[in-house]
């Protein structure tokens, strides 16, 4: 599983461009920052109040006034700027984020996303997710292709939505899929899997791009 998550994070990291401002969700999406190419400059936004996230401090070196959106103590870059929640979400909704990377419970072929609540289960909440997928210029879903064998990529989400038609790209251990007007298009397939494998693990009809490539990890 650790290998699969690293594979997904490495592939998502290749979607980052020099100068991008990005927001990375908790969990697998956070791992993306470990694989961003060293020759590009990416500014990581943390929705609780700053742009310029760096990494984690050594024990004993924590600044108690700096946590990330998951509540962990973190370090910041020299170019950091701290802001309040209204400004932070102004940055998000105002279209000043190039990319957000989030996990998902379900994604539909038209880009609908469900990732915040399972009715009847423990209440968590959307936090900043609804604003992030509404406001970011590009929404990338980084997730395992299925959940205990159950389809997560579907014709239509059955769980309550986070937002309609917001997802641009899905990266899983099996491949890379783009949400396009004609449907969900596989642009890269991992060499461990066949077209039949990825279709069988998916709850909607996949379109295979004529120029489909092998999903590269490096």
């Amino acid at each position, binding site marked *: 599983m650790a290998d699969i998550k690293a594979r997904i994070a490495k592939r998502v990291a290749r979607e980052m461009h020099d100068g991008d401002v990005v927001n990375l969700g908790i969990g697998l999406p956070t791992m993306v920052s470990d694989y961003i190419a060293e020759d590009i400059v990416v500014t990581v936004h943390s929705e609780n109040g700053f742009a310029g996230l760096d990494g984690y401090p050594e024990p004993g070196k924590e600044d*108690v006034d700096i946590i990330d959106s998951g509540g962990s103590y973190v370090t910041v870059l020299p170019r950091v700027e701290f802001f309040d929640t209204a400004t932070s979400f102004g940055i998000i909704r105002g279209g000043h984020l190039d990319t957000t990377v989030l996990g998902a419970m379900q994604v539909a072929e038209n880009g609908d996303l469900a990732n915040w609540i399972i009715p009847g289960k423990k209440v968590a909440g959307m*936090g900043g997710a609804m604003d992030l997928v509404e406001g970011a210029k590009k929404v990338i879903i980084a997730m395992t292709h299925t959940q205990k064998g159950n389809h997560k990529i579907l014709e239509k989400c059955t769980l309550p939505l986070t937002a309609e038609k917001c997802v641009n790209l899905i990266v899983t251990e099996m491949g890379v899929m783009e949400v396009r007007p004609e449907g969900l298009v596989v642009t890269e397939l991992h060499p461990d899997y066949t077209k039949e494998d990825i279709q069988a693990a998916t709850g909607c009809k996949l379109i295979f791009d004529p120029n489909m490539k092998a999903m590269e990890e490096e």
Partner: protein
Amino acid sequence: MIDKVITADEAVAGVEDGMTIMVAGFLATGSPEILMDALVRKGVKHLTVIGNDGGLAEGQPANGPGKTPRGIGKLLDNHMVDHIIASHLGVNPRLNEQFADGSLKYTLVPQGTLAEKIRAASYGLGGVLTPTGVGTPMQSEKDELGRDKKVVEIDGREYLFERPLHADYAFCRATICDRFGNFMSAKATKNYNYVMAGAADNVIVAAEQLVEIGSVDPDVFQVSGVMVNHVVEGEPKWQI
């Protein structure tokens, strides 16, 4: 009145059972702990609490082993809250325990919308229009006071109309504050402190460093003391 400094107990003396309060902080970072402690001492009940989340419970990993509850977590531990209006409720386990036993109800609001509803109250706006939540339960479910949501179409795009969120008291935390109430909150402690100051009838600021009027460059301050009713000194810096 130029000197607004009073004690924590004096600051919460007017908080009554059933009132609505807002508490700044994100997972308790930026929350005014000495004001939460004073509310616990007062023992006020049936509060409606507006905040980002439920703070932290005793011993949670993010809180440090053996540490006491932090922020709104103190009010939850003492069963002082009937209704919480927040954007995330998954961290402090007291929340789901109290939802399950029926003693606490909740209203979820997306984080950016929550900030704007509070800002609208502080800035005298009739509400805000946001694209966030269109086509989701945020559109179909009722708001924190049981009112239907309105969808407004402007130039072909749909927005949710979100009403202002006002409270009887707002409890904020300053890193540096002068006796008039001018303040700043350092680094990632800003979060809701700046929008909540002004969104309540009574705004109380707990100060980590209380300074004399005129003793620091006014450019240090980011919120005007005009928005603040009272200042309480002695807010400790959090120790890991």
